[in-house]
């Protein structure tokens, strides 16, 4: 299978200028790659830098050193060195990030939130709406909520809206941070199925899962990032 992510010599140190220039080294010399159809699960104790690594892969945090090639439009592009509009284009068409939190935009309905990624990739309004509804139903979100903005939803409901939005059209590369944190068992099962389906469709997945049972069912491979801890 083609390589979708290639990480080379990535290091991250946070420098806190307003706290006496304190330096917080996170990891050093991280190397790995992920192929299409794989699900790499990041392991390591809390604070080892799993979330930081995921954010670096997304181009959200900037590494102190190293390269990250994401295969975009058939070519590897270094997301660390890419200009902003290229990073945004990679995110729009290749790279998705699924967090446990939904960033709520005032007044935008649940259905529109879930439909949006399909529209951005060129689907017609009708097709997008049908698929969005099917996904919301699958995640057991009551139909009476679909027309409402999720600002007042519970944590679990917001999380399901976020998952629906991310999996309605799985990206070629998906970065997943604790997607099942506040879900019940039935919905957790749906998320596990969605990840398996995305993988079967050729998505490369990198994820963090605290729930051990979920982790075991999702992972095709583990990477313990404690090994890259700075000495």
């Amino acid at each position, binding site marked *: 299978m083609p390589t979708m992510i290639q990480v080379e010599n990535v290091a991250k140190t946070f420098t806190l200028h307003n706290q006496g220039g304190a330096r917080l080294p996170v990891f050093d010399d991280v190397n790995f790659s992920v192929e299409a159809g794989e699900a790499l699960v990041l392991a390591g104790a809390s604070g080892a830098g799993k979330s930081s690594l995921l954010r670096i892969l997304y181009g959200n945090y900037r590494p102190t050193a190293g390269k990250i090639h994401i295969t975009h439009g058939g070519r590897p592009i270094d997301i660390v060195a890419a200009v902003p509009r290229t990073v945004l284009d990679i995110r729009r068409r290749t790279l998705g990030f699924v967090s446990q939190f939904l960033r709520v935009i005032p*007044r935008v309905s649940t259905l529109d939130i879930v439909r949006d990624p399909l529209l951005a990739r060129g689907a017609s309004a009708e097709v997008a709406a049908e698929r969005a509804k099917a996904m919301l139903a699958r995640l057991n979100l009551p139909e009476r909520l679909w027309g409402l903005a999720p600002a007042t939803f519970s944590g679990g409901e917001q999380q399901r809206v976020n998952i629906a939005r991310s999996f309605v059209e799985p990206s070629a590369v998906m970065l997943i941070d604790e997607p099942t944190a506040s879900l019940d068992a039935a919905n957790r099962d749906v998320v596990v199925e969605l990840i398996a389906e995305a993988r079967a469709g050729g998505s490369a997945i990198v994820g963090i899962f605290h729930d051990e049972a979920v982790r075991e069912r999702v992972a095709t491979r583990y990477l313990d990032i404690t090994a890259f801890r700075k000495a």
Partner: protein
Amino acid sequence: MTLHVAPGELALEPAPLLSVAGISRFYGERIGCAEVSFDLWPGEVLGIVGESGSGKSTLLRCLAGIDKPDAGEVLFRGGPAPLDIYSVPEQERRRLMRTAWGIVHQNPRDGLRMDVSAGGNVGERLMDRGDRHYGQIRERALDWLQRVEIAGARIDDRPRQFSGGMQQRLQIARVLVSEPRLVFMDEPTGGLDVSVQARLLDLLRVLVRDLGLAAVIVTHDLAVARLLTDRLMVMKDGRVVEHGLTDQVLDDPHHAYTQLLTSAVLGA
């Protein structure tokens, strides 16, 4: 030879819409802004943040053709040929400002004619660019009032009868009706109540996306920058201290000043 274009490149346009090189503006000994350079691409939204006096409004005025910089050039590629906006006669620059781009002022009174009806405020921009058919102008004005969520029945009212939030939405309709490719906004939500701000922000977000506008937005509000902009420039003492993708700058700030700015707000 066949030219192979990777699918990844097809979505990107070939040239920036605006190229800014070495803009400086001084007020005697004091620096307004110094040595600012960047490119703005079609459809891109750039935010400029910084505290009061950081030079962000001065920079915006230089970019928008309102205030001639002491050094540097602003190259606009929205027309048939690239245009250095400060090398052309004042008249041509003014024509450009009225037709090819738009300016949304913080205070709607600076962008509206308060003694002219709402419909007249919007229609005037169409007449500026040569539209003459009264019925069509009124129809388009009505359409735009509704797009910015002003009831059509208010078309003959004067802006001074409107609330602050409505005045700001009217100003936005007046700017966007002529279909500019580039819009400059100076604190577009400043001076409005929080609930009114949210509505205006959502409206701006949708309009910018649907029209594929390029925009430069000055704000001191990082949440506004997060919602509306793709890229962010952080200014301090007239200079750009950090510049990058908006979420990078806000989530992993590198410069001491940006770290101070982002840590001083709650949940931006």
